[in-house]
């Protein structure tokens, strides 16, 4: 038996989040005294076997189905191979794709699926800790299942190669998918930005209600441009229509993990914090020294962001 990692990739490019899934799977496999194996779905994923091996997979299963990503097709591949590979658990990372693919597979297999775990004690019954409220609370849960299917909350563990990397043994599996499974494949892509994004930028300069207006964000844009970062914001800002929702950081926005998050005029409500806490360092700029953001940050400047930011920009 083994713990099977469902590898997330986009047209053959490994998603960093998958590497977190490997770390989580290794921690479960160690408890069970079993190896980790990997599942690559899609003809375009063939080149990823070595990365899987470096991250601890002793065997790599490849289902070379044709076509782009589709949640139903990927879910059906997992559901079809589960009885063949009979792993003792299935793990993916809790991203949009990871969670939806496991949910489709679990629905097909009529088994439970536990999303966004942060810890697992694996025995006959698995005991799990998972996040609720987007990470604001932890839930201890018990899982009764013949095949535990879990995702690990994104950024809950750090990606790290396995200490003893293996040379993976690659096995191809031909899976016949029902015709309906292709009804939800990606049909098109629209490229909007090639550059830095909120999820990947090394610096995010975030603004909240304290910025006061859409124009107020000019000073944040200027500093972000100077530092090679991007601008993010709180829900108060998107609700006021000052920034598009794609800039929102938090429970119902984007989870960021930059080297530095500069949070300006943001109070630090828990729903915002959970989207920002994976930042390596946080600098809060706020007029209120008692604001949550200030109290929880690594560094803070107390003052009006419209005085502080231009002064920083000028060096």
């Amino acid at each position, binding site marked *: 038996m083994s713990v099977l990692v469902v590898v997330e990739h986009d047209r053959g490019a490994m998603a960093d989040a998958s590497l977190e899934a490997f770390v989580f799977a290794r921690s479960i496999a160690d408890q069970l005294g079993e190896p980790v194996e990997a599942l690559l779905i899609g003809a375009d994923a063939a080149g990823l076997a070595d990365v899987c091996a470096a991250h601890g997979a002793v065997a790599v299963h490849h289902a070379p189905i044709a076509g782009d990503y589709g949640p139903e097709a990927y879910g059906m591949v997992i559901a079809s191979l589960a009885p063949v590979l009979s792993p003792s658990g299935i793990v993916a990372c809790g991203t949009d794709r990871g969670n939806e693919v496991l949910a489709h597979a679990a629905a097909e297999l009529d088994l439970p699926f536990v999303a966004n775990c942060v810890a697992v004690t694996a025995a006959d019954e698995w005991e799990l800790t998972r996040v609720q409220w987007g990470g604001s609370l932890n839930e201890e849960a018990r899982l009764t299942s013949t095949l535990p299917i879990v995702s690990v909350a994104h950024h809950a563990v750090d990606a790290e190669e396995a200490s003893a990397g293996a040379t993976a043994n690659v096995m191809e599996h031909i899976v016949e998918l029902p015709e309906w499974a292709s009804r939800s494949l990606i049909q098109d892509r629209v490229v909007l930005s090639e550059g830095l994004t909120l999820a990947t930028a090394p610096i995010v300069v975030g603004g909240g209600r304290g910025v006061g207006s859409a124009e107020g964000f000019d000073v944040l844009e200027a500093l972000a441009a100077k530092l090679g970062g991007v601008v993010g914001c709180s829900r108060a800002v998107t609700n006021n229509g000052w920034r598009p929702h794609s800039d929102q950081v938090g429970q*119902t926005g984007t989870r960021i993990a930059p080297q530095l998050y500069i949070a300006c005029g943001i109070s630090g409500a828990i729903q915002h914090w959970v989207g920002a806490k994976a930042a390596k360092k946080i600098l809060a700029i706020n007029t209120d020294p008692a604001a949550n953001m200030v109290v929880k940050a690594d560094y803070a400047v107390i003052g009006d962001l419209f005085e502080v930011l231009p002064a920083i920009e000028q060096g």
Partner: protein
Amino acid sequence: MRVLVCVKRVPAPGAKINITDDGQAVDATNLGHTMSPHEECALELAVQLVEAHGGESHVLTLGVAEADEQCRWAASIGVTKATLVDVGTMGWDPQRTATALTDAIRSIEEADGPFDVIIFGNESADTGGFQVGIRTARALDRPMVNAIKGVSISDDGATLEAQREIDSGMEVYRLPMPCAIGVKEGITWPRYPTMRGRLASKKLAVDVAGSDAAPGGQTMVRLNRPEETVSETVILGEGAAAAPAVVELLKELGLWS
């Protein structure tokens, strides 16, 4: 076009979320109730689809009798029908919830005709299981894609084009209708109830049903507050005078060029 939206009643927490002493629930004393922002946007989307294509919108919720409030909120922005599956608790696991919603949808469809689109939130605000919509759609044999932030209906009404925001842009899915989607906040801009909407919400007839769905395999044991590494905040200074210290920090972190 017939559109169904599934929403879940949850406590409306403030800047902090407190847990009851027995660790079994969020302490909702002094709190109102609401639904996930994703679901608020889902309701708005349903109303907009019906405004554009004609037809009828319907809201479905499972939980306690008080979820009547969320049905009436939906009506206040223009949803015209409502079903509440009263199971006397908010604590049903995702498999059980999906089974009950599937049964409820089947009986609504038997009475009123099939839905062209079923809209879920990407995830519920509280338990965030990321699956109730997908399980329900699978059981009803509707194509389903989650994390959707834009939709349009083809001219012939046969296809729903759904866009998912990714790092570099959008992925486009084209689902044959009838279909289901899970949507994210930002897909629409929820309107405020008008005077007329408030009146309609008072008059709304909420259909109440029950369910005998069996429990699934995931059981909540208790809630905890996550451990936080409390670091002492280093105050770099006040106002513009703090700028040199910030620049120093940026250099230290290798982020100043």
